[in-house]
């Protein structure tokens, strides 16, 4: 349950039976052939996997290097999130659960959860901060279309952190019939490991796809944005032990790392406990969790998954912080160079090219974690389109 010193399950006793049930069963159940078969069939026929590994010709020319985009934006529901919710709904079914809860920030995980619940005919309740409900109306509508109940989290800052608290409270109150589909590689063990395994399909595919295209399965760099860290976990997973592959995790600097309005957790955070996991998190001297800021609703989480905390601490991954402005500019650039409007989360990863020089023969894979349709309002307002 630990990545170096990070991880664990710092949970109230009320959650112990649920977490323990998961811990004892997740590896066993997910290894069952019937599980693997159903999981992969759904990823293929329902989600639309494998997602392409696309050589971005014009972007590569611009930065004089070789850039591949892993097209998680083409998944059903528009982001990598669904890889995990498909896995967890199958697990929940096998555990006999009849009710699903989830937290969501920007709404992508909420939509992905509502989607798999509709697919399986299981009741679904999604907690979402009251502030996020107001600013992510289309995703709220999608969840409702899918039959999910969206419950506003009205405590604290009324955003993702608080939605997560509310989901945990729901789970405490409904420990027997309910499974909590956590949306990122955060939370108590076994969630970080379980979610990373479900997302690992991303790097599993990159390996054979890159071999087809470049004759080698290891790129020089794998790059991904990190909020909680699930898309990066998926993209890094099968490269963690490949020392020739450099990993770059891109965090949201917000208005600047030192402005007090930032979400660069690895730089600004200290070790602590958030949502049941020991990891790096943004907090006051006194241990109160602070509110992060980013223009991207998917990156403004005050913690980071324990795997990433470990990658940071050990130096296995390079962490780069990108501001709102740089991210937005790079999102527009990708739209106009490649005809792909990226989620603002992903735009942070794309902005790295303006700061880090790559060699012409470097092969760089960026996990294009989601499409930017959900962010159109933000882009429009920002660029006054």
């Amino acid at each position, binding site marked *: 349950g630990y990545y170096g010193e990070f991880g664990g399950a710092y949970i109230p006793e009320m959650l112990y*039976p649920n977490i323990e049930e998961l811990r004892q069963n997740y590896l066993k159940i997910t290894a069952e052939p019937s599980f693997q078969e159903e999981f992969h069939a759904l990823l293929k026929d329902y989600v639309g996997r494998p997602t392409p590994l696309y050589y971005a010709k014009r972007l590569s020319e611009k930065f004089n290097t070789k850039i591949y985009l892993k097209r998680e934006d083409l998944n059903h529901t528009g982001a990598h999130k669904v890889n995990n919710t498909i896995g967890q709904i199958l697990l929940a079914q096998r555990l006999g659960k009849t009710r699903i809860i989830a937290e969501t920030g920007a709404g992508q995980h909420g939509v992905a959860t509502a989607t798999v619940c509709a697919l399986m005919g299981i009741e679904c309740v999604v907690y979402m901060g009251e502030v996020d409900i107001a600013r992510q109306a289309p995703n709220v509508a999608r969840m409702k279309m899918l039959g999910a109940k969206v419950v506003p989290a009205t405590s604290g800052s009324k955003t993702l952190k608080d939605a997560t608290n509310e989901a945990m409270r729901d789970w405490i*109150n409904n420990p027997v019939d309910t499974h909590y589909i956590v949306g990122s590689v955060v939370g108590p063990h076994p969630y970080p490991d379980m979610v990373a395994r479900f997302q690992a399909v991303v790097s599993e595919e990159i390996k054979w796809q890159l071999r087809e295209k470049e004759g080698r399965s290891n790129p020089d760099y794998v790059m991904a944005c990190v909020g909680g860290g699930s898309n990066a976990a998926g993209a890094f997973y099968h490269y963690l032990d490949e020392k020739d592959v450099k990993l770059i995790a891109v965090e949201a600097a917000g208005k600047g790392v030192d402005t007090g309005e930032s979400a660069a957790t690895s730089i600004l955070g200290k070790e602590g406990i958030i*949502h049941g996991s020991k990891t790096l998190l943004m907090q006051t001297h*006194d241990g109160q969790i602070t509110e992060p800021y980013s223009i991207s609703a998917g990156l403004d989480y005050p913690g980071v998954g324990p795997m990433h905390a470990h990658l940071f601490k050990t130096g296995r991954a390079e962490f780069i912080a990108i501001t709102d402005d740089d991210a937005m500019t790079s999102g527009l650039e990708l739209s106009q160079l490649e005809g792909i409007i990226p989620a603002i989360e992903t735009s942070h990863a794309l902005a790295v090219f303006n700061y880090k020089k790559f060699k012409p023969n470097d092969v760089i894979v960026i996990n294009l974690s989601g499409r930017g349709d959900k962010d159109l309002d933000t882009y429009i307002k920002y660029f006054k389109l």
Partner: protein
Amino acid sequence: MNRIIQKLQEPQKLLSIYFTAGYPELNDTVTIIKSLEDNGVDMIEIGLPFSDPLADGPTIQDSSTAALKNGMSSNLLFDQLTNIREIVKIPLIIMGYFNPILQFGVEDFCKKCQEVGIDGLIIPDLPADVYNEHYRHIFEKYGLINIFLITPQTSEERVKFIDGISNGFIYMVSSASVTGSQSGFGNEQEAYFKRIHNMQLKNPQIVGFGIKDKETFTQATQYAKGAIIGSAFIKNLTFNGVNSIELFTKQFKA
């Protein structure tokens, strides 16, 4: 002898009250503690407020948020409690989430507790296993009793494990819920209280969550040694203020 252990040896059913330090006003802490003792309360849980109290319902959450806004912090709480043992004799327990304690430094925190006269700690998100492995020796070094929770879902095996590592009382959560969510106890709870009672644990149990009046207090303590009132007390403070403590506690002593 630790005041908690002494108190548990008294014959009566124990009335324990939880309040959030720094609420309603920043400097109410000592006043509330004194008033609770004066009105016959047996034991007090002093809540160290946390930004993300995920085991708590809205009432305690809101009081925590207000307390933090008022300026409450670990250091300030210890300052307020510096001379508390000159005026209060009943057991005092700090109840708080693990992160603020971790940031303070677990050993520093325990040392401070000993200095001001705190008798025990309740840390809902510090699991029994982690405590046992990493922190038990520190708590014991400073004479602090750490109190663990059990719930209706806690397996018999785990109840026994928790009983084994406990050396004061067991915090028996009345039902699967966050604080402040229950409305009275039913057959299910009674069966659970009885089941735990029949296990004849070495540590007495004190029931928490859902106790709000004389009736629920009586139900809760039929098989248990005492009961803790939290949300109901906070609500009373919110609506009726610090001066209403006498009236609030009287109902349980009637």
